[in-house]
Every structure is written in C-alpha cells, then in structure tokens.
C-alpha cells in the first residue's frame, strides 16, 4: 500500500508539472501578454519596459522556472484586474463552488442510485419506462439551458426562488456558507438543482446498467438457488457489486461538477471560482486563469487518488502493492 501511495504521488506530481507547463506555455507564450496589456498609446520603449516588468523578455525555460519557484512558495502572481494576489482571490471563492458542487452530488447520489437500481431490477414496469425516458431527457438538455429554464420556471413565472447570488451566508471557520440559512438555502437550490439534474440522470443510468449486468451473473443465480430472500440478494449481492463502478464515476463526476460549475455559476451569478475563471478569460486576466487551472488539476489528482483507495476498499480483488 505504501509503495502504491508513493508511486501514485510521484505520478500525480508529474501530471501536475506537465499540466502547469502546458498552461504556462499556452497562457504566457502562445498569446503575448504584452500585446494584451499594452495600451493603444504604448511606444516601443513602453512595451519593452512592460515586458521586463512582466519578466517575459527572458528565455522561456527561465520564465517557467521562476514561475514554478513562485508557485511553490504559494505565489501565483497578482491579478491584472483585481490587483490582488491570485491565490487569495481563488481561495475566497472556492467554498461557494465546493458548496454547490457537493450539495448537487449529494442530491444526485441519493436520488439517482435508487432510481437506477429500481429500474434495473424491474425492467418491464411502466415506472421504469418513465424513469429511463426522463433520464434521457434530463441529460439531453444542455446544462446552461437547463439553468435558463429553471430561472424561467422558478424565478420568473412562479417567483418562488431567487435567480442569482448567494443570499445570506453564515460564517463558519471564517468561511461563508449559504446552506445554513433559509435565505442562503433558497439561493443555493436552483444552482444545485441545475448541477444535480445531470448527476441524477448519470447515476441512475449507471446504476441501471450496473444492475442489469450484475443480475445475470452466475453468482446472482447461485444466490437465488441458495434460497435467500430477494431483498437480501439485492442489498448484499447486488449493491456491493454495482458500487464499484459507481465510486469511480462519482469521483470523475465530482471533478466534472466543479468544471461545470463554471456554466452554472455564470447562469446564476453564483460567486464561485467558475465565474471567476470565465470573467478572467474574458478580461484576459492570465494569472488567475493559470492559477485556477493548476489548482483544479491538483484537486482532480487528489480526487482520483481517493477514488483509487476507495476502489480497493470495495473490491477485494484489488490489492495495491
């Protein structure tokens, strides 16, 4: 296990390094920050001075080394737009994104898996047809348009839920949370639902196909032949087996939710890191974009690692060495 952890950490470090290099080259070299930042009235001298100030006159490898050195010390640079340290900006907004992503994931798992198992077990029931058609519709509606529809329905017509912002936040551990106040929760509902609908559909489909697959395995027939009750067969033999693929996908999904939060946050003006990213792309605020991508990579690497460990705990056939 220790060996495995060490190897995985090594692989993760390489991954983060490659990602940072790609992002760095993409952001600082392929497109020229001087051209972006320089005003209309800049003279050639001004441009050279700006290049020196930004450090982009040096060889690429040195620039990257300097950048990495700063990153290791926790310095991702300063935002062009906000004129504040990038890390601070991102960390300030991260809780909002995590809050909506985890809440959506929770809804997705709690609703999606039972729906999927039910429809996998009862393939011919009418409810199954309804579930399977609804999930197809659910994931066919692009996330952003779903958001638009939710706003039309709940904010414009029914006027029961607010369409934008975080509402009241409660300070816990120095971080603001929406979920602990009624107003905050009402603001959280639509963005979370927006992200959750896709998750519900995905988890339901996964659980359904997993169930269908496991149902025809020999050990399920043998479990029936042993004379144990159907309820127990489902609870013990089936669910343990379908959890294995679900855990993997859930890990990937969590990453996907954080990524898709960019869309949801834009639609609902939710002040998370996704909205920050898009604003920064539009404003050519490169340090923020670079820092966001590197931090996100780190986050995904961590999630993947946790998934692998969970995987080993669930599936006795896998033993890391």
């Amino acid at each position, binding site marked *: 296990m220790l*060996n*495995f952890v060490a*190897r*995985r950490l090594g*692989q993760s470090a390489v991954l983060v390094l490659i990602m940072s290099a790609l992002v760095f080259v993409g952001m600082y070299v392929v497109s020229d920050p001087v051209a972006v930042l320089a005003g209309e009235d800049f003279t050639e001298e001004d441009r050279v001075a700006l290049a020196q100030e930004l450090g982009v006159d040096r060889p690429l490898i040195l620039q990257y080394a300097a950048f990495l050195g700063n990153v290791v010390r926790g310095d991702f640079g300063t935002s062009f737009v906000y004129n504040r340290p990038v890390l601070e900006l991102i960390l300030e907004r991260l809780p909002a994104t995590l809050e909506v992503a985890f809440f959506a994931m929770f809804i997705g798992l709690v609703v999606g898996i039972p729906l999927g198992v039910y429809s996998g077990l009862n393939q011919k029931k009418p409810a199954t047809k309804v579930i399977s058609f609804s999930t197809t519709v659910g994931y066919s509606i692009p996330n952003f348009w779903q958001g638009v529809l939710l706003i039309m329905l709940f904010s414009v017509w029914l006027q029961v839920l607010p369409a934008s912002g975080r509402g009241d936040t409660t300070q816990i551990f120095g971080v603001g949370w929406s979920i602990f106040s009624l107003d905050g929760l009402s603001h959280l509902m639509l963005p979370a639902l927006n992200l959750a609908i896709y998750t519900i559909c995905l988890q339901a489909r996964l659980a359904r196909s997993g169930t269908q697959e496991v149902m025809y*395995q*020999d*050990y399920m*027939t*043998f*479990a*029936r*032949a*042993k*004379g*144990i*009750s*159907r309820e*127990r067969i489902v609870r*013990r*033999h089936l669910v*343990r*087996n379908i959890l*294995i693929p679900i855990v993997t996908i859930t890990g990937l999904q969590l990453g996907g939710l954080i990524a898709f939060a960019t869309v949801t946050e834009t639609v609902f003006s939710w002040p998370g890191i996704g909205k920050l990213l898009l604003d920064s792309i539009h404003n050519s605020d490169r340090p923020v974009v670079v820092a966001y991508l590197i931090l996100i990579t780190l986050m995904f690497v961590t999630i993947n690692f946790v998934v*692998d460990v969970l995987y080993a705990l*669930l*599936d*006795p*056939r*896998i033993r*890391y*060495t």
Partner: protein
Amino acid sequence: MSDRLIEVEDLTIAYPMADGEVFRAIDNFSMSVNRGQIVGVVGESGAGKSTIGKATLGLLDENAVIDTGGVSLDKVMVTQLEEHAFTDIRGNKIGYIYQNPMTALNPVLTIGEQMIEAIEANTDKRGAAARAYAIHLLEQAEVPQAEDRLSKYPHQLSGGLCQRIVFAIAISAKPDLIIADEPTTALDVTVQKAVLDTLVKLTRQENIAIILITHDMGVVAEMCDYVYVLRHGKLVEEGPTAQVLKHPTQPYSRELMAAIPRIDQKVERFAVPGGLGQAEDRQRAIQYLMSRKAEAGEAGAPLLSVRNLSKTFTTKATALKAASAFKAVSDVSFDVMPGETLGIVGESGSGKSTVGRMILGLHTPDPGYEIRYRGRDVNELTSRAEKLAHRQSLQCIFQDPYSSLNPRMTAGDNITYALRAHGTIDRGEARQLAGDLMELVGLPRASARKMPHAFSGGERQRIGIARALSFRPDFIFCDEPTSALDVTVQAELLNLMKDLQDQLGLTLLFVSHDLAVVRQMCDRVMVMKSGEVVEAGACDKVLVAPDHPYTQGLLDAMPRFRPEDAA
C-alpha cells in the same frame, strides 16, 4: 412408490426467438429420481440438459415458457409455483451446484458471509452457531484450514476449493436432492476426481439424491446409477448406467459411445460418420499440398530439435500491481521426427501450450535455448524471405473455434488472405484454393463465401485446419484443438486429422489435457508439470505403465469409460 422424489412429466420448455420462431430447449421429456439415487443426465451442447435443473429450481430465464408438463417434488408441482414459494425449496429441499465455482461465488463477499447467509436462510442456526456449522460443513467437504477460509474471498482460493465450498453450501440444509450442473467441467482432472468423491461421500451419508448433469460419459460411468441420454432437448435413451453404456440401443447413443476416446485402447478411426468432400476437389487440394518444396533433411534426422527451452513471464509494475515473474517453462528439450506425432499432456498451467507457442515464434524463449528446424538454427535465418518461409512452414490449429477465425472475413478469405497479401497467389487462384481446401476438410466449397459465425464450432475448427494447410506446412502445432468441442464432433475432427496426416506426412505436436485423446493421436508423449517434463516416452508405455508418480496420479484420476466393466 413411496421413495419417488422427483417426477418430470412431458416437460416442454420453449424460448421465443427474435424471428418469431420458438426454440424448444426441452421437448416432451420425462424422468424420475428416487431418494438417494444418483441419476445422470448426459448430452452434448444444445441438448437442453441444464434447462431441466433450472426448471426444477424456478431459475429459468424470464422469457422461457413451460409449454407442457412440469416437475413435481414430493408430489408438489414446483413448476407452477410463484417466485416467493421457491425460497422454501431452494437450498432447503434442493441444493444446487453450479458449473463454474469461480463465478458462482460473489467476488466481493467473503466465503463466511456467503455460507452463513445460506445457513441462516435454511436452518434454525444463527450467529455463532451458524458460523460453527459453516466450519463443520467445510471440514466435511474436506476443505483444509476450514476456519481460516471463512474470512477469505473467492479469488483467493483455487477452483477446486471453491467447488468444495459450493458443495458445503448446497448440503447445508440437508436437502433431499442436489442438482449438480457440470460440477467438474471447470476443474483439472486430478482435482475433478477428488471433488466428485467428496460429493458422493457427502450425499451418501445423508441419503441425498443427485441429478448429475454432464457431457462426460466417464463421470457418468463412475458415479451414476441410472442415466438419461438427451439430444436437442429430446430423450434418446434411458436405463441403468451399465445397460446404456454397454448395450446402447439407439443409433445416437451408439455413436456417442463410439466417439469417446479410451485411454486403455487405441483405435485407428472412431466409428462415427464423417462426410468426405468431393473426390476431385480433394485430390486437387492434396496435389497442391504435396507440391511443397520439401527439402528433405538427412534421413533419420529430426525435423525439429529443441534444447533448453525456458520461458519466464514478467509483468511490469502498474498502478495496481507490483512487478512479478512466473516461470512457465523450464529447461525443456526434445526432438520431433518427420511424420510423427508428439503429444504433450499436462494440467492447466503446466506450460504445455507455451512450449508450442515458442516453437512457432509467438513467444520469445529465455536466452540460452536452441531451436533447430530441418537442421538449421532458427535464429540463423537472416533474409526476409527465409524468415517468412520458416514462419509459414510451422502452423497451428488453435483451441478456441470461436476466436480463431477473423469474424469480419469470409471463411474463404480467412483461409487465403495471407497468401494473397504476400502476392503468392492471385484472386482466382485464391478462390480455387479456398474451395479445394474446404472440400478437403469436409466442408462444401460454396460455404467459403459465408462468414465464420454461420459455422458450428466443429466446422470452424475445420476451416482453421484448412487455413493452416494453405501454407503447405511441414509442422503443425495442435493446441488442444478439440477441447472446446462435443465428443462426437471431436471424434470426427480427430479422424480428419489422422487422415490428413496419413496422406500428407505432416509432423504434429499435439497438446492436450486429455490423456485419452493423446493416446489416440500420438506416437510419443511428454508429461509436463509446472513447466517441467516429468516423463517422456512412447504412448504405449507412458500412458499404460508410467514410471513417474505424477503420471500415475493423472491416469488414476481420469474418469474411466469402460462399459464392459460397468456393473
């Protein structure tokens, strides 16, 4: 009769098919089982024998329809029961033993969990008592270190042990009947014998009846009191085992008995019908095959000479597994004379196939070996043409007919694609050759245009033989060519191979786990165990009076098919 346990009456089970037709898996079948009796249900694939067991336990596929008749247990018609009523029967009155023990046990639950849930469902033992009973059962099923096994997962145990655990679960509620569906098919022969002995011992103790579903006449001969022979869902013949084996009255049963290879006597040909192709086409094919540029080596020199052949398989470290090394073959040396058949026998994992694959060049042996073919070291072949000629001169007949043909090419293209790709023959010649070779192996030449999936397993093996022959090889490695086939199909195929060898003077290396098949096919035999040759010599010697205890063990474990001895 008071001891009548199971009565199957006029049972017909049908499956609706996609094209609207109905497929009858079991057709108007009747049988009965008395308490404590061991009854065999034998037949080849497609006979519908598994369906009978599943119907008795209510485990038929959802789309199966019971058209007529039914199965009664103690005079209760079980085939009409609802699903929930079956929980009283399953495990309780009838135990079930599955074909493949490795897939019958749930991979993510421990042995203990799986045993105890069955015990708690079918007996009044709970908690610690159930656990103690589970250990007791495992000991009865002769599972060593019974207590430790409870915390293990199925993949940590061997197939034989898993099957013993399945036995233990099946007898846990002391049922009246056990349905054993091919209980040893997935096991090696030495394990098979011991596992069956345990099963008989356990059931005799408790006077439990067995319905033994199998394709293996040897197993039937050794175990069963009474036997039913099925074909295509219909009963062909029934009777006391000895009577059916000794004096089969129906043509199909006779053919079946004649097709079984016997370890104790060698026959020239199996007495099964075998269609020969059109004489003219066969003759043309044989002419083509005989026209190979035979560089006859020195008289009396071996065609193939192998020295110090070893193979270590290493796996690289991945995220999930550490690197490992496994010695599949160690230090094997032998010669094969032109025109002879050398057999290699051994259990799975003995390295017998790996030897052949190294000779073919599909695996690279560990350094320090020497393979000489027609007197030349194969590593000294330098030019492209020489290498290609060498490669094509050694061919293979593969084990699995369902994967040995390219499913996206017609049978004819499968046979001649490579020759055309190398520019050896043109399109017209290829069509001619494919047709001739198809006839040679006993298939109509017109069927060369069909895709592989339109052929049965035996027919696909014939196409595989035609493909191997298309290169006009001198040496053919036969890698368990009949192990996936039914016994009558096997007999036909072995007949074909003998005929071809006689006509073409081919040299064969014949690998099999089945000693009786090797006895029929080979002149000399090597016995392999864990990558090493433990004994080698003439078949008549090694397979009759072996020197090595391992070979003796193999021979003793073989289910004997000797109808004349049957009581």
